[in-house]
């Protein structure tokens, strides 16, 4: 089926989880307001972080 490294599969699984929990689901505004812009930023940051981990692993393999 797929020939992905386990690290890559973990990245994909984490991004899929983060996408669902932070971007989907019913958005209710609770008493403590969390800035959506802040979460988006973090989400992007997390993806960049994951991409850089992947790049490092790629460099180590090469």
């Amino acid at each position, binding site marked *: 089926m797929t020939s992905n490294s386990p690290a890559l599969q973990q990245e994909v699984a984490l991004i899929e989880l983060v996408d669902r929990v*932070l971007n989907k689901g019913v958005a209710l505004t609770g008493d403590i307001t969390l800035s959506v812009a802040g979460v988006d930023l973090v989400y992007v*940051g997390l993806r960049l972080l994951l991409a850089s981990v992947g790049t490092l692993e790629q460099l180590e393999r090469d």
Partner: protein
Amino acid sequence: MTPTEAIYVYGVVRGGTAPDLFADVGGIDGRSPVRLVVADGTAAITSAVPLSEFDAEPLERNLKDSGWLERKVHAHNDVLAAAVGKTVVLPLRFGAIYTSEEHVREMLRASPELARRLERLDGLLEFGVKGVLDAAALRSRLADNGVDDAADTGGRAYMLQKQRERGIAEEMRAFAAACADASHERLSQAAEDATANPAQPSDVAGREMLLNGAYLVRAGREQQLGDAVRELEERFGADGVSYELTGPWPPYNFAGEEAES
């Protein structure tokens, strides 16, 4: 309740749901038990969280810590996952935090649409299917097909080579679009509802995501979605496309208003 704590809400279930469904999962703070807060016909899945971690200011700081966020995202999902396949659950987005259980009850009473959305999701499970193209494999396959025997040299060979590369890039774009459409259509046939989310950027291994789909499948008919995935693997596997099936998930993609129409 002391003013050092707030109430985190994970999702909503029917009012009559047995609280021991969540007996084995810990709260998002790593220690507080998960409790149901009931009002009218619905119940909020909640746990207490320390304000030192979840009040607006520390929360803003913590959200920038990817390790913290990763742990909390897992914890949020783990609580909801305890209900998946056992009873219908409406997942909330991360970060619905209330200062008291009474405020959670007020929210439930003021949100009659939550009960309607719950009923619509009864007996349905969300699955994810990603279609991923090994772009390098398809490119070399297309390039091999285009090789001619003429021993051109110099400028003419260079021009032909450039032409061929442009042709290959065009062919790949057309294939990716057609494969994504055909895959989503086939998978949707096995689902009650479906949504194609934007594909995530291609990863470092040169793999390009064609399809980032979510499918709402009736419990007991999961096999039909699995069959559709296998059929697509047979159809597009030789072109370098692989599929990843995940789930069942809490129905995050089908919980919101946009799915209501």
